[in-house]
């Protein structure tokens, strides 16, 4: 056996996160399954809507949109709770002593854990959403055909091209946008002994409270809410009051997104927080 056998510590570190946390893919898949189930029932009325006249908002796209939304919301929740537990759990069950007995650096480990919400989950969400939507599309086509209606009428109105462009792009930009949030949660996970959720929320809420009482203003809380929910707004040119729907290709606005100081600033903060997290993992004891 040679000592320079190829090893892939980063790849296997990510794999082990998926072994430990099957919720990363099971929870989004569950959300999609519920959407599919509801859609299945709705196909009873599908042929009539397709055959009928074409009102402006005929709701045929609704199941596709809502399933995508549900999967993304679940994915966001999974990301948050994953990041809060990722570095806490291994200290709590003392398995950190096992992981640290192997030639995998703290850098690799922390980056692998950060990669779960930043890279793995967006890909999982995209695959689950598109998978569910494809099933819906195939099912609808069959139902429509069974009723002797021309499926061309369905396909003309259920046009997935825009959504399948918007989704990968939006999920990617949103992950970048949320990078400092996930990095903060990972840091707290590596630092706090218990109640990571409370420790993660307390400092920002304390700042917001202080600002409110001291200056009777609420800039900080707005800043936080924007950071949590504003990712898609940053990716598309539908910003502003009332936030219109993304309904055309020209709404995709990568030039704005990639020139946004908010995205780059967020990434810089994320890098800083991750650097602290790596140092913490090196020196924190098991709980």
């Amino acid at each position, binding site marked *: 056996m040679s000592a320079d056998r190829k090893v892939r510590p980063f790849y296997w570190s990510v794999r*082990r996160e998926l072994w430990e946390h099957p919720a990363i893919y099971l929870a989004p898949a569950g959300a999609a399954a519920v959407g599919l189930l509801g859609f299945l029932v709705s196909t009873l009325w599908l042929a009539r809507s397709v055959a009928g006249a074409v009102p402006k908002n005929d709701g045929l796209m609704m199941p596709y949109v809502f399933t995508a939304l549900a999967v993304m919301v679940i994915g966001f929740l999974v990301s948050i709770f994953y990041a809060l537990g990722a570095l806490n759990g291994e200290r709590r069950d003392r398995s950190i002593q096992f992981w640290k007995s192997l030639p*995998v650096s703290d850098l690799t480990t922390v980056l692998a854990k950060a990669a779960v919400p930043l890279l793995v989950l967006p890909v999982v969400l995209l695959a689950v959403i598109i998978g569910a939507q494809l099933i819906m599309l195939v099912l609808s086509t069959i139902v429509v055909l069974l009723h002797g209606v021309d499926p061309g009428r369905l396909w003309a109105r259920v046009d997935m091209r825009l959504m399948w462009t918007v989704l990968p792009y939006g999920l990617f930009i949103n992950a970048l946008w949320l990078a400092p949030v996930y990095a903060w949660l990972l840091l707290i996970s590596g630092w706090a002994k218990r109640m990571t959720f409370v420790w993660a929320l307390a400092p920002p809420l304390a700042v917001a409270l202080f600002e409110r009482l001291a200056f009777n203003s609420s800039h900080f809380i707005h800043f936080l809410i924007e950071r949590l929910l504003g990712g898609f707004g940053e990716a598309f040119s539908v910003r502003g009051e009332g936030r219109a729907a993304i309904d055309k290709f020209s709404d995709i606005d990568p030039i704005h997104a990639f020139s946004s100081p908010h995205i780059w600033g967020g990434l810089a903060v994320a890098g800083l927080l991750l650097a602290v997290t790596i140092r913490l993992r090196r020196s924190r004891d098991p709980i």
Partner: protein
Amino acid sequence: MTSIEARGLRKSYGKTVALDRIDLRVEEGRILGLIGPNGAGKSTALQAILGLIPHEGELKVLGRDPWTAREALMTDVCFIADVAVMPRWMRVWQALDYMDGVHTRFDRAKAEGFLAKTNIKRESKVRELSKGMTAQLHLALVMAVDAKLLVLDEPTLGLDILYRKQFYDSLLTDYFDHNRTIVVSTHQVDEIEHILTDVVFLDSGRIVLDVSMEAYEARFAELLATPEQVASARSLGPIHERQLFGRSILIFDGIDRARLDGLGEVRTPGLADVFVAKMIATFPGREQAA
């Protein structure tokens, strides 16, 4: 080659000094037993050696500073802390895949060979295994790594005697050779006594005894004194005396065995007895407790 070399190794947690400037040198091919009461600093010493905690003083493990080069060091060092550290959610095949994927010196076939001799199934999760089986699994993974140094921190804690014996037997027969070094800390002194080549007693962060087993046999003597000779035996300065069935057993440190001729039966004392003698010698207050 020197596996471990420490000079003035010190570690404190706040005001508590866990290691108080110890010097330690372990050569390649030795099996060192690190023995001490709870809180003596055994685990702290091992954690420093493994690069898990920062330390003061000089410390080189296989020529590297473990704190700054843990990742590189872990290619050549294996480590088993007590059995509870295997991740409980992990399945046996996942552990094999993972080790195979991250460790350049891991030999998967060898690990599977060791596991084949046990009742451990590849689909089992660690949480479903008994403590003894978990230890077997961990040992199988570790023995399949072609490492230069193996560190064991109370590896058999909480295991029943069958598993404990098996653990050390497989370590000796299937693993140890003279290119490897093993450092083991334990409470169960008598169980590892026969496999050690060197022994270090640690107490309150200090080294109380550091001796090879060859030197140990020459240095320590235990006398089962005949009743008439107890007084003259005592005058030779034993480090410890205890009573057994009405007879006195005296332990001597660094005595010429010829001087004990005619005073009773002489033999080499067990490590546990010398350990107790040394501990009481350092802190006489322990006599009541012991």
